[in-house]
C-alpha cells in the first residue's frame, strides 16, 4: 500500500514545526550551523529544500498594490506551504541512479541508501522538483518519508508535529479521497483549490498538495518532465542522425570511390557516425556528461523554481549543488 503525505496548504500556518521535527528526528545539521543571514524573503530564511532541509516552508505574500484600508484587506493573502520530496510514482532520481542506491520501498516511497550512493549526482538534476541535494559527505540526501519510523508503525516526524494537520500522512488512496472532498468543499465556498500531484504529474505524486494558486507561485513546475521522457526523442534523433550520416557516408564513400578513381586519398575515420554530443546511448554509464545533458533539459524547470538559484549549466565548472547547500563538497566554493 502506497504511503504518502497530503499537504493542505490552506491550513498551513507557517510555523515550521515540520522543519524542526525533521531535523530532530533525522539528526540533520542546521543550515550553516544555524548562522545565516536574514534573506528578506518574507519569513523564509532557509530558501529551498536541500541536503539539510528535507522540509521547507515557503512564504508567498500576495498583498495588493492598492494600499487603502479597503484594498489592503481585500484579497490579501499570505500563502504558506511546507514543501517536501514528492516520492513520485515515476521518480526521475530513481530512473537515473546508476548504482541502484535509490530504491522504491515496500511503502512505495523513494529511498536513498546511503551506503550504496557513490555521490555521482545524476539524481540531482534528474529530479524535476529540485529535491535531491548533495550533502557535506558528498552523497545524495532527501526526505526518506521517515522510513525508519514507518518500519515501526510510526508516522513521519513532520506529520506528527504539524499542529494544524496541514501535513497528513497515510495511504495515498485514502489521502486522495480526503483531498478531493476538501477541494469540493473549498470550491463550494468559492476558493479556487485543486490537487497538485495527480496522475498527470509524473504519474502521480505520493506526496501531493492542495493549492489555491498556480503551481509556479509555490515554486512547483506546472509540467515537470522526467529524464526518461527524453529517451524516445533522443533515440529518434539519434536514429535520424545515424540515417543521415549513413546516407552521407554512402554518398561520401561513393564519392570517394568515384574520386579515388581519379582523386586524393581520404580518411574514412572522419566519417564514422557519431551521435549528437551527450545523448544517452542505451546502456551507457551516466557520468558527468549525462549530468550536463540533464541540466540542459531541465533548465526550464529549474528556472521556474524562482527562489532557487538556477543550477550551473556546467557541473564540472561550478558544482552540482548550484547553491552552496552542499557546503562546498561539490566544488561550488560554498
Amino acid at each position, binding site marked *: 500500500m502506497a504511503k504518502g503525505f497530503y499537504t493542505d496548504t490552506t491550513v498551513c*500556518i*507557517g510555523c515550521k514545526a515540520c522543519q524542526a521535527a525533521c531535523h530532530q528526528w533525522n539528526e540533520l545539521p*542546521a543550515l550553516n550551523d*544555524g548562522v545565516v543571514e*536574514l534573506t528578506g524573503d518574507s519569513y523564509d*530564511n532557509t530558501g529551498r529544500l536541500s541536503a539539510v532541509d528535507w522540509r521547507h516552508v515557503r512564504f508567498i505574500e500576495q498583498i495588493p498594490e492598492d*494600499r487603502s*484600508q479597503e484594498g*489592503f484587506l481585500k484579497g490579501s493573502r499570505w500563502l504558506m506551504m511546507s514543501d517536501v520530496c514528492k516520492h513520485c510514482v515515476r521518480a526521475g532520481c530513481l530512473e537515473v541512479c546508476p548504482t541502484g542506491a535509490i530504491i522504491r520501498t515496500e511503502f512505495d516511497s523513494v529511498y536513498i541508501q546511503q551506503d550504496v550512493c557513490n555521490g555521482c549526482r545524476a539524481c540531482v538534476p534528474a529530479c524535476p522538483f529540485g529535491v535531491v541535494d548533495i550533502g557535506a559527505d558528498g552523497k545524495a540526501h532527501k526526505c526518506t518519508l521517515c522510513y525508519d519510523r514507518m518500519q515501526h508503525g510510526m508516522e513521519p516526524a513532520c506529520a506528527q508535529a504539524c499542529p494544524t494537520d496541514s501535513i497528513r500522512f497515510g495511504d495515498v488512496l485514502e489521502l486522495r479521497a480526503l483531498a478531493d472532498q476538501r477541494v469540493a468543499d473549498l470550491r463550494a465556498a468559492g476558493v479556487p483549490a485543486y490537487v497538485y500531484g495527480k496522475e498527470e504529474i509524473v504519474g502521480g505524486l505520493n506526496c501531493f498538495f492542495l493549492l489555491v494558486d498556480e503551481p509556479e507561485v509555490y515554486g512547483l513546475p506546472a509540467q515537470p518532465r522526467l529524464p526518461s521522457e527524453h529517451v524516445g526523442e533522443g533515440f529518434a534523433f539519434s536514429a535520424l542522425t545515424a540515417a543521415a550520416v549513413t546516407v552521407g557516408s554512402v554518398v561520401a564513400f561513393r564519392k570517394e570511390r568515384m574520386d579515388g578513381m581519379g582523386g586524393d586519398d581520404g580518411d574514412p575515420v572522419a566519417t564514422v557516425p557519431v551521435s549528437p554530443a551527450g545523448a544517452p546511448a542505451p546502456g551507457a554509464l551516466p557520468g558527468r556528461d549525462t549530468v550536463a545533458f540533464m541540466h540542459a533539459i531541465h533548465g526550464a524547470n529549474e528556472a521556474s523554481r524562482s527562489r532557487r538559484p538556477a543550477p550551473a549549466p556546467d557541473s564540472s565548472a561550478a558544482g552540482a549543488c548550484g547553491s552552496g547547500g552542499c557546503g562546498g563538497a561539490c566544488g561550488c566554493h560554498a
Partner: protein
Amino acid sequence: MGSNFAECHPVGFRWAMKARERGAKLIHVDPRFTRTSAMCDLHVSIRSGSDIAFLGGIINFILTEERWFKEYVLHYTNASTIVADTFEDTEDLDGLFSGFDPAKGQYDNRAWAYEGTLPSTPLHETSADQAHQKEGQPGVDFRHHPPRTDPTLRHPRCVFQIMKRHYARYTPELVARVCGCTEAQFLEVARTLCDNSGRERTSAFAYAVGWTQHTVGVQYIRAATLIQALLGNIGRPGGGILALRGHATIQGSTDIATLYNLLPGYLPAPTAQLPQHDTLEGWLAHEMPTTGWWANGRKYMVSLLRAWYGDAARPDNEWGYQFLPKNVGDHSHMPMFVAMHERVMRGFMAIGQNPAVGGQNAVYQRAGMAQLDWLVVKDLFVTETAEFWKAPDVADPAAIQTEVFFFPSSTVPEIDGSFTNTQRLIQWHDRGAVSPGDCKSDLWFTHQLVKRLKQRYAGSTNPNDAPFLALSWTFEERDGEARADSVLKEVNGYTLPDRKQVASFADLKYDGSTAAGGWVYTGVYPEEGKNLAAARSGDDYVALGWAFAWPANRRILYNRASADPAGRPWSDRKRYVWWDEAKHEWVGYDVPDFPETKAPGSKGVWAKGGMDALDGDQPFIMKPDGKIWLYAPSGLVDGPLPTHYEPWEGPVANALYQAHPRNPVAKTFNVVGNRYIDPGDPAFPIVISTYRLTEHHLTGAMTRWLPWLTALQPELFVEISPELARERAIENTGWVTISTPRGAVECKALVTRRLRAFEVMGRTVHQVGMPFHWGYRGVVTGDVTNELASMVADPNVTIHEAKVFMCQVQSGRRAKEVLARLQDAPSPVPHVGRRERQAAEANIDRAIERTAAASDPAEILVEPSPFRLDQPIGVYHG
C-alpha cells in the same frame, strides 16, 4: 484580537482551524497582517492601542441596534443593579470617573458603589490605605442585603442605562477615526459577532498579551467581557474569553502562585499596609465575601496553612497565619528593579527568566542587577542575565561587584511534572531521560534549598526564623529531589492526621482536619495512586476522561449559564448543562458549575450567606451577587467601565477626552533612564509594537542556542511598510536604527506590504513592529529590542506597555551616534532619590530590629514603604 494566535500559540490554533473547517468564521483584528490574519476569513487592521474604541463601538452597536440577549442579560448580569449617586462618568468629567484624588493619583472606588451598599464612613474620610480592594469589600458591602435592582432597566442609574450613556459616543464613525479602519469593516465585525451569538450560536474572543501589555490592559479584557455578557456568550459551549497563555504552564504558575500578591488558589497574600491583615480573622473579614462561593474561603485558607505548616499550624496560633510573610508594597517585576537600583533589594533569583533581554527598558534593568550583592540564575543555557555584566553597554565589567551563581537546569523531558494550559487542563508528563552533567530540576533546587535552610536555622529562637522551622516539608524524595507526584498530592490535599487524599474541595474543612496546597486543584489526585492529570481517555466532545481541569474537572466555568433561568438549554444545538426535573439535579456533558441540587427556581436567603444567599438562576457563583459585572463597583483601580484612553506614548490626541487623554492612574516609574515620550512629540513620530515569532520563544533563552531554530529566524529585524521605507530611504534587509529616549537598536529591515500606515484623526500614522528574541549571547546574536521600551504599567496588575510606544526610524547603523545624543539629553530628576532610599533602608533596618526583639510574630508590624509603588495588584494574565 490582541493575539497572534497562529504564530504564538500554534498548537492551540489547531482547534481554531478545525472550527474553521467546520464552518466557523474567524476574524482577526490586529495592526499587522500576520500568519494569523492569513488564516482568517476577515482581517481588520487597527492602530495599536485603539482596541477599547473598537470594542466600545461594538458595545454601542449591540445596545443601539437592540442586539443584546435580553433574557441572559436580565438574569445573569448586573444590568439592572442600581448604582449610588456618588458615581460620575468619564463622559461627564472629561476622562475621569468620580472618586479621583489628584494628590495621590488614585481613585477611591467607594464612589462607584452600588446604591445602598456604601459603608457608613463618608467619602472624604477615606483612610490613607485604599491599596488592597478585593471584590465584595470595601466598595460593595453585601453583608446586609443584596444590591437593589430595577428589572425594567429604566432607572437612570441602573447599570444598563449608565453603560448606554457611557458608550453613546462610540459610533462607527468615531471607531473609524480613532482606529484607522473603515466604518464598513467595523460594522462587518460587529454584525458577524451579533449574527453568531444568541440561543443557537456562540462566539468566543481569544486574546493574549496584545491586550494585556497596555496601560489599560485589564480594561481591554473587561471590554470583551461586556460584549460577551451582552451577547450571552459566557458559560456556554463555543463562547468565552480565552486568555492564550504565553508559556507552557504559566496558567499553573498563576494558580499555584508565583505572583507575590497571591497565595495558591487565588487567596490574596497578606500585606503589611492593611491593618485588617494583622490577624487571620481580619484577613478573612476583609478579603472573603460572605455571599457566593468565596464564603468558603476560610476552609481554603486554613487548609493551605495546614499544608504548609503541618502541626505547627494550630488553632491557638491562627493556624500559623503569622508565619506568612507580608508584602510591604508592590513587589512585581518592575518595582523590583527599581528597588535594586536603590539597594533595597540586594539578592535576586532568576529561575527560567531572562530580564537582561526581556525586561522593559533592559539597560535600566541590567543596571539594576549590577547593584545586587548576589544573583542566582538557573536556566538551560548561560543566558544574557547570567552574563549581564558582559552587555555591550557595560564600560567596565570589573566595576560590577555582583556575585553571580549559575545553576544549569534540566529540561522538561528530563523531569516529572505537569503543565496547566489555558483551559486550566492539568496534563502530567513523565521523565523520559536523565539530565546530563550537573543539570538539575527546579524541584531539586527548591527541595535542597529548603533542606539547607531548615538545617541552617535549626535551634534558632529568633521569631524571624520561625517560619523556616515551622515549615512542613514531608515530600517523598527521589534522586535528591522532591517527587513531583508527592507535591501534587499535597496540592490536591489530604485529611489529617491520617493523610488520606481528599476527592473534592467540598471536603475541605476549616477546623484543621484537612490540608490542601492549592484548593482549586483538589480532585486532581483524589486517592492514593490515582493521578488524574495522567488520565488519557478522550472522546470527541468534552473528553472528561482526558487529564483534569480545575476546578472539579470542569471544562467550562459558570456552565449553569448554558441553560436558561428555568434550567432548560437555550437551544438544542447549544445544549450543555441543564436541570433534570425527574432527578432533581443538574446534569449535562460537563461537571455542572452549580450546587448539584439547587433548583433553578429556588430563592436565596441572603442572611444565610454563602451559596444559600444566591438564587437558582445566578450562575456566576464566584461573585457575591452571582452575576456578571458589566459595571464593576470594586476590584479595579482605574474605573468601573472600560473607556478609551490613548497609550502612554501615542501619536494623536484622545478623540474623547482632552483633560485626561491617558489612563489617569497608570503606573509610571519616574527614575533616571526611563524618560517618556510626550504625546505627539515630533522627534518620535512612529508607533512601534514588539512581539514574538513562532520560531523563537520570548528572549530566545530556550531557542537562540539551537541552530535548528536560529537558521529559521537568524537575525533581528523590524517590519516596515514600503511607504515608510521609501520615505526613510530604507531597503529590504538594509540596516535600520530604531531609537527612543531609552535606547537605540540596530537591525535589518524587513520591508513588507503586510504593514501599512493608518489614517487616524486626519493624520497619517506609520507603525513598525519588532520581535524581541535577540540578545548578546547564543548561536545568533542581535540587539535587545526591549532597550527601547519604557517602564510604564497598567495600574491593576503592573504589566508593562510593550504593545505600543513611540520611536524614531532611520536608515543605516547609527546607534552610537543616537546614544551619544541621548546621554547629552537632560535626565529627569529621579522620583526615588537619596532621601527616599535612606528612609527605605532605615525602615527595613527598623523592621529587622523589631523582628529580632519581638517575642510573638504578631507584634511585628512593618511601616508602609516610602515608595509610591504600593498600589493594589490583581491577577497577571501573561
